[in-house]
Each structure stands twice: as C-alpha cells, then as structure tokens.
C-alpha cells in the first residue's frame, strides 16, 4: 500500500519490519511501534509474525501428515495418502542416496526440513501487500509473512542441524576421534616438533570448515528468499506509478513468481540435501 503520504523507501522499510514484541529499555515489555524501537529492544524481543507463520505452517504440515499417517493403509491409498507418500518417498530416496549410516532420525528430520522450508518459502508467492493489508484492517501494522526471510528462522534451523552434526560426530567418533578429525587433517607429519604447528593449522582450517556449514546453510536460504521478497516489493512499487507501469509490473510479477516457484522448491531441496550430507559426514569414520 504505497499511499501518497509515504515514500518508496518508507514503503520498503515498512515491508521489511517484523511485528516485534519485546522488552524496550524505556517502555518495558510491549509491542514495538517502529523499526527503530524494535532495534532498540535488542535480544529481548520476538518476531511474532515470523514465529506465528512458521509454526502455523509446520502445524499445517503436521496436521495433514498426521492425518495421513493415522489413516495410512497398506491397501489402496486415498488422495491425501498418495500425495503424502509421494513426498515421503522422495525424501526417503534422497536420504538413502546420500546417507550411508544407520540413523532413524535423519529421514524424519529431512522430511520436516524440506516441508517446512518449502512452505515458508511458498509464502513468498502470496502477493506482498495482501496479507499485510488484511492485517492492517484489524490494527496490526507490521506483518512479514515469509518466515524464511527472517535470519532468526533460518539460523535456528541451521543451528539445530549444527547441533545434531556435533552430537553425532562426538557420539560416533568419541570426543578424541572428533578432535582428531579436526586437528589431524589435512596436514600430517611424523616430526614431533612440527606436529603441534600442523595441528593448530589443521584446527583453524577444519574449524572454519565446520563453522561454515551452519552459516552457509542459513545464509543461503535467507539470502535467496530475502532477495526474492525484495524483488517482489520493488515490483509492487510499480503499481503506484500509473496504469502503464502498473501493467508492466503485473507482467513482471507474474514472471518473477513463476521463476520463484523454482527457487522456493530448490532452496527447500538444497537445505534438506545439505542437512543429509552434513549428517552423513558426521557419521563417517574417515573422510
């Protein structure tokens, strides 16, 4: 809603502000009324829109998949079971292809991640002004509907995966084995003097390698979705530039949305596949 009273910059900024509830140093607990207030809250704040949409979407997933699971029959499957089984089979194939160890957690984890990221990304295809406008009618002024454009959400997913990587690395290889893996490669020597130096270098290299996993995982998703959302917002700005530019904007939005279908699916797939691969590496004794 690019009204006459707000500039393009304000419109964009408005769209990129989360509905924030938190502790403000001056006003105490409460809703943030501006982006600046939200920033001043620091860590003691929560994005109600990101959490609401992401939990709502995963609950939708859980509801339908649970229903399918409850009515699951080995006989002729219904339409819901058919669709659910297609996704399950797809995830299962990927897990079996990339994950060589034996761990019953990986496949359900991959399924949850794939569906969740896909659903969150899918919110990007909802016209950018529709939901914020609907919420503004009931007095909610900030509404970011794509949870995966919130780094909190993507980092949380990546940190969850990272925790599992650390957990299984230590569980499978032991603390010594894991540390050995971090310090014993890629440089190796039998020279006792050089060995500590090499181990330090190895630790730095492998440490960066390890830390890069969750960061790349979350930033890739966040960056793609944030950029996609930004393009949608910029296209939406064209609707306020007269009917000619508006029609052109409509065409652009359609094209970008079609392209975004690919991005939405691809990012969900990449997140899932990398999770599987990272956990496979955590399970591998030697690599």
């Amino acid at each position, binding site marked *: 809603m690019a009204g006459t009273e707000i500039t393009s910059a304000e419109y964009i900024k408005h769209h990129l502000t989360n509905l924030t509830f938190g502790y403000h140093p001056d006003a105490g607990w409460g809703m943030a009324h501006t982006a600046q207030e939200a920033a001043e809250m*620091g860590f003691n704040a929560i994005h109600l829109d990101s959490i609401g949409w992401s939990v709502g979407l995963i609950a939708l997933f*859980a509801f339908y998949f649970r229903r399918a699971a409850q009515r699951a029959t080995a006989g002729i499957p219904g339409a819901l079971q058919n669709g659910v089984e297609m996704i399950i089979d797809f995830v299962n194939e990927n897990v079996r292809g990339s994950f060589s160890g034996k761990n019953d957690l990986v496949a359900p984890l991959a399924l949850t991640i794939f569906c969740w990221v896909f659903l969150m990304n899918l919110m990007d295809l909802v016209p950018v002004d529709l939901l914020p406008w609907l919420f503004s009618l009931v007095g909610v002024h900030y509404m970011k509907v794509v949870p995966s454009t919130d780094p*909190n959400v993507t980092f949380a997913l990546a940190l969850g995966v990272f925790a599992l990587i650390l957990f299984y690395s230590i569980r499978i290889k032991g603390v010594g084995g894991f540390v050995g893996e971090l310090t014993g490669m890629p440089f190796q020597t039998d020279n006792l003097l050089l060995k500590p130096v090499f181990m330090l270098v190895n630790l730095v290299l492998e440490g960066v390698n390890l830390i890069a996993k969750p960061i790349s995982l979350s930033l890739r998703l966040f960056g793609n979705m944030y950029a996609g959302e930004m393009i949608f917002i910029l296209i939406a700005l064209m609707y306020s530039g007269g009917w000619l530019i508006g029609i052109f904007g409509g065409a652009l939005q359609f094209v970008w949305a079609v392209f975004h279908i690919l991005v939405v699916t691809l990012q969900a797939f990449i997140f899932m596949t990398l999770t599987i691969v990272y956990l496979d590496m955590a399970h591998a004794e030697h690599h």
Partner: protein
Amino acid sequence: MNINLTLVAQLIAFAAFVWFTLRFIWPPLMNAMNERRAKIADGLAAAEQGQQAQAQAQQEVEAVLQQARVQAAEIKSNAEKEATQIVDQARAKGRAEAERQLAAAQAEIAQETNKAREGLRAKVAELVVAGAEKILRKEVNLQTHQAMLNRVAQQIQAG
C-alpha cells in the same frame, strides 16, 4: 535483521516438530508403504504360482486324457474281441444243435422205418398165414402142419 529471541523460539519449535515427525508421522507411513510393497510382491508371487499351477494342471489334464484315450481304445478292442468270440461261440453252438437235431431226426426216421417194416412184416406173415389157411383149410390140418406153418412165418419175419 535483528537476532533475538525469535531464534530461540524457532529452535524450540524445530526440535518439537522434528520429534513429532519422528514419532508420529514417519513410522506409520513408512510401515504402510513397506507393507504395501510386501503385499504387492506377495501378490505377484502368488500370480506367478497360480500360473505355474495352472500349467501343471493343464499338463495333468493332458496326461489323464491321454490315459483315458488309451484305456478307451483298449476297452473297445477288448469288446470287439469278445463280440467276435461270442458270435463264434453262438455259431458253433447253433451248428452243433442243428447237427444234433438232424441226427435225432434221422434216428427217429430210422426207428420209424424199422417199426413200419416190422409192422408190415408181421402183417404180411399174418396175411400169408391167413391166405394159406384159407387155401389150405380143407387139406391142411392145423395141428399137423402147425410146425411147417410156424417155420414159414419165422422165415418171413426173419427175411
């Protein structure tokens, strides 16, 4: 772009829903799919088995039919043999009976002829005696010529 408690909340939700999927979604669906896979495999195996059984039954039917055919031919040839035997027997019996009856008839005829001949002889002897009696009534004394007359009668009877 603020990192805040959202991250913690999202992390908790993540753990909760992964647990939910692990516990309530994945196993039943996977079980159903595996069960169906097993069912289909069983069905295919059963179908193949059925086909094999059918082929075997076909073979058995063929064998039984063959046997029945052989048996029928045997029965037929036996029956034919027996029939000719019966006909031959009947024919032989008939011929024997005919011969027997013929012989009996011939014997009877011979008997009758003899009887007739005897009768005739006796009559002739009587007639001769009677004739001779008539002729000789006067000259012939029955008592004196009795021996001669008897001799004549005997000769006729014997002749």
